[in-house]
């Protein structure tokens, strides 16, 4: 099943070129506007009051002192807030229902479902007055018994059947028996803590009502979902809601759903009749926006003496909130990575009275690959086999679990190229055998793996008589370089200079783009861009025919898009010439569409393709990480000193921005490996380190040069061959670091993050 080759000839060489971002100048001059940078006359400011019990009921709420403060416009609680519709139940028949982050109708209920749930919002003429008012609200609760301790709840875990779009587990043969009979085996338990996205831009919203029409500037990864969610919650037609988000200050999954801050800004604007800005404090982000679930994992591997896997067991337990959350596909990569004869994969969940968990960069695989890859490393150690060699020996021809074909698979090449770039052959195999002065040096390797998706997208394209091209779609720019990459694809497909293409994005007034999630945006848009460009080329050809251009006499199939027009072997015409002769100012083309029917059709097509694709083949981005650490033998301090990552992300549209995305994933993976840990008080369910001082994300000094490269080999089943680069980078990083630390110290850490106390 290969797609027809693109009709355009890449004369400009624009596809894959590391062009600078189209928004680079704006981002380095302060010209870019984020959601709380928009001025409005009479703008009011809001601040949240968060619950201090994990479960219970508000018995009284005293807002007198807060309301009396100068500048305070309103203090909204469940007693006086306007009514909202409760969030819709999530259904796959309408993906926009996934916007609901919880089932709770905040400020329309006296019930409390997690420590941190907003129970009031103060609105004032200044941010200082709003914050002070919020601090003066006194709430009395009747607490109910609650379950907030993940470790204590583990015995109550129940099996999880699905992880949203994929099956949760699977089995083949009798893995436990094969494990018991294996010549060499490991049976290991790993734990990973909760994590928070910590996009540098806290969640922020500016909301303004004019009558029943709502304009919202919101830091969101899913403009269309947000729009539909808000229309439903506030009982207005979808067409009355406009969501504007041309630039978002990082998301990583944390801005994919609609969290209470967005809804409450809109509510506050409705109640006060003024435009309202709500920029969450960093603490409020931790209290009201879910993060990555903690996990407990078992990975057991059995092998023959020569290192052929006979058994692979990977099970996980994660948590979800009683009021919502999303399933975490922790064992997903273990279905696909190694050719084990017998397999058992299972996921379980416990339900707690905590803030709903949510997707965070490579949900599941980010932590699942840590455990799997550390276990593979331990097995290699016990087999006395090089860990790269062990992986190569178990590289499957077909999907190990069910024998499906891989759409393409280049993991072997990634491992080999990476090993050569890193100088892996120079590794002395024994732990604690490499030193540099007083530092213990260790080298580790791990595989990266992330499935590839494609979502429906709508867009329009306009070609003007001056040769300029405008692509319009409500696509998201959170740093991925989306507009830049899509402009490159348009330039390639139409054979026009990159500079002549402009992309309008980030506004629900434009045709709806796919949500920015699952590393799917580039490929999803690429599919739509390919078809809209084909449509436009057809329209140019038809116009040429009608207006007596010599181009019209040649069949379209024999023409190539290049040099700003359509050309055959014996010449052709530029778009400018065709449009000018026909007296047309511009030509338009579109794919997807706003009508309800079309949306439904797109969605049905999406679900069908998902099912068909899933039945036909296994498709993923993959890669290999090679890591060098230095460990101080006295203090246990770990420094990452060298990194090589080689990735198969299919076609690379922009070598510069793709490398940045992969590096960004690795950096976040370094945080996961060495520092990040959301600490939840097991008695109260309250996050104890809700700030950037005590939650340790990597800083400049933690990150060495990251040597990132691609195999740049198109996937034959994806539009333009693109597999997606947003998440694969973080997968495997925890494993590579843990393995390097083991090699340096002889100590295997089974509990992330690898802090120095665990090495002493």
């Amino acid at each position, binding site marked *: 099943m290969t797609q027809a080759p693109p009709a355009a000839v890449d004369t400009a060489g624009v596809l894959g070129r590391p062009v600078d971002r189209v928004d680079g100048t704006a981002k*380095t001059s302060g010209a870019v506007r984020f959601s709380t940078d928009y001025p409005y006359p009479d703008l009011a400011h809001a601040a949240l009051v968060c619950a201090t019990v994990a479960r219970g009921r508000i018995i009284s709420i005293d807002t007198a002192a807060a309301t009396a403060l100068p500048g305070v416009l309103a203090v909204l609680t469940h007693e006086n807030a306007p009514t909202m519709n409760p969030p819709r139940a999530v259904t796959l028949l309408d993906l926009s229902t996934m916007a609901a982050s919880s089932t709770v109708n905040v400020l329309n209920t006296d019930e409390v479902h997690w420590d941190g749930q907003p129970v009031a919002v103060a609105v004032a003429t200044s941010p200082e007055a709003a914050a002070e008012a919020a601090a003066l609200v006194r709430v009395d609760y009747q607490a109910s018994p609650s379950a907030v301790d993940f470790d204590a709840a583990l015995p109550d875990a129940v099996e999880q059947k699905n992880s949203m779009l994929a099956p949760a587990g699977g089995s083949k043969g009798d893995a436990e028996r094969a494990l018991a009979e294996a010549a060499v085996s490991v049976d290991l338990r790993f734990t990973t803590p909760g994590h928070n996205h910590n996009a540098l831009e806290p969640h922020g919203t500016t909301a303004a009502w004019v009558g029943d029409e709502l304009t919202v500037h919101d830091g969101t990864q899913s403009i269309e979902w947000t729009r539909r969610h808000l229309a439903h919650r506030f009982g207005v037609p979808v067409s009355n809601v406009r969501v504007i988000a041309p630039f978002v200050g*990082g998301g990583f999954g944390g801005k994919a759903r609609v969290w209470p801050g967005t809804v409450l800004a809109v509510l506050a604007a409705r109640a006060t009749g003024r435009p309202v800005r709500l920029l969450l404090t960093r603490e409020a982000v931790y209290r009201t926006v879910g993060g990555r679930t903690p996990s407990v994992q078992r990975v057991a591997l059995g092998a023959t003496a020569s290192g052929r896997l006979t058994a692979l067991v990977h099970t996980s337990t994660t948590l979800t909130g009683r009021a919502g959350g999303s399933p975490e596909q922790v064992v997903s990569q273990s279905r696909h990575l190694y050719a084990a004869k017998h397999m058992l994969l299972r996921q379980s969940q416990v339900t707690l009275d905590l803030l709903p968990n949510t997707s965070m960069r490579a949900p599941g695989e980010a932590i699942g690959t840590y455990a799997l890859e550390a276990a593979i490393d331990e097995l290699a150690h016990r087999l006395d086999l090089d860990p790269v060699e062990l992986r190569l020996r178990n590289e499957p021809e077909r999907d190990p679990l069910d024998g499906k074909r891989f759409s393409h698979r280049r993991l072997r090449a990634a491992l080999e190229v990476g090993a050569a770039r890193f100088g892996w052959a120079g590794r002395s195999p024994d732990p604690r055998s490499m030193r540099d002065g007083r530092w213990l040096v260790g080298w580790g390797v791990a595989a990266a793996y992330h499935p590839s998706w494609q979502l429906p997208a709508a867009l329009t394209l306009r070609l003007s008589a001056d040769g300029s091209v405008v692509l319009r779609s409500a696509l998201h720019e959170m740093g991925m370089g989306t507009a830049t990459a899509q402009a490159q694809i348009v330039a390639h497909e139409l054979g026009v200079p990159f500079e002549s293409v402009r992309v309008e994005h980030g506004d629900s007034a434009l045709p709806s783009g796919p949500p920015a999630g699952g590393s799917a945006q580039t490929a999803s848009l690429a599919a739509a861009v390919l078809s809209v460009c084909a449509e436009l080329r057809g329209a140019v050809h038809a116009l040429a025919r009608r207006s007596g251009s010599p181009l019209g006499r040649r069949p379209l199939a024999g023409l190539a898009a290049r040099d700003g027009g359509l050309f055959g072997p014996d010449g052709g015409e530029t778009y400018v010439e065709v449009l000018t002769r026909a007296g047309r100012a511009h030509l338009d083309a579109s794919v997807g569409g706003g009508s309800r029917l079309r949306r439904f059709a797109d969605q049905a097509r999406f679900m069908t393709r998902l099912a068909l694709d899933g039945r036909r083949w296994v498709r993923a981005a993959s890669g290999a990480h090679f890591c060098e650490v230095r460990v101080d033998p006295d203090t246990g301090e770990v420094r990452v000193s060298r990194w090589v990552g080689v990735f198969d992300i299919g076609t690379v549209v922009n070598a510069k921005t793709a490398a940045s995305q992969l590096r960004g994933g690795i950096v976040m993976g370094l945080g996961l490996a060495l520092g990040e840990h959301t600490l939840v008080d097991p008695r109260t369910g309250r996050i104890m380190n809700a700030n950037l001082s005590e939650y340790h994300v990597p800083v*400049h000094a933690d990150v060495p040069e990251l040597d990132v490269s691609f195999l740049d080999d198109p996937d034959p089943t994806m539009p333009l061959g693109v597999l997606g680069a947003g998440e694969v980078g973080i997968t495997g990083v925890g494993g590579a670091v843990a393995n390097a630390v083991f090699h340096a110290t002889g100590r295997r850490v089974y509990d992330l993050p690898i802090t120095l106390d665990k090495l002493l």
Partner: protein
Amino acid sequence: MVEIRMRVNGAEVSAELEARVSLLDALRVRLGVTGPKKGCDQGACGACTVLVDGRRILSCLALAVQYDGSEVTTIEGVDHPLQAAFVRHDGFQCGYCTPGQICSAIGMLAEHAAGAPSAATEHVAGAPALTRTEIRERMSGNLCRCGAYNGIVAAIEEVAP
């Protein structure tokens, strides 16, 4: 209420403020200068970094009234080769930390030129060379959650004298 006067990006401005208003909120909310960003409001991320009389400060930890009579430069007022270098080296993704990174880097280069040592400096006497290790140490107050650190360091290295 206190009245303050400052020069912001070369323009004389004045504002009536409560003493509790941070320089960051004075700029962003009162004066409409939204280039400096708020990432934490607690001095932990560097997104709010601006230059005051040429020195880099965290404007979220500064009260505006302390800076009465000062010369404040935010990203909007910066015209520096670093900006183009950031674009060339892809020293950002989302761009939210970028105003702070650039202002911080300008302040940092001046500190270094004045001979200030850092925690990474081996010998505090004598002018330390601006190695990558030095740059990383001196820029570690500016978080980039998108992880554009490599590009930022490369941009600074290219522009450093």
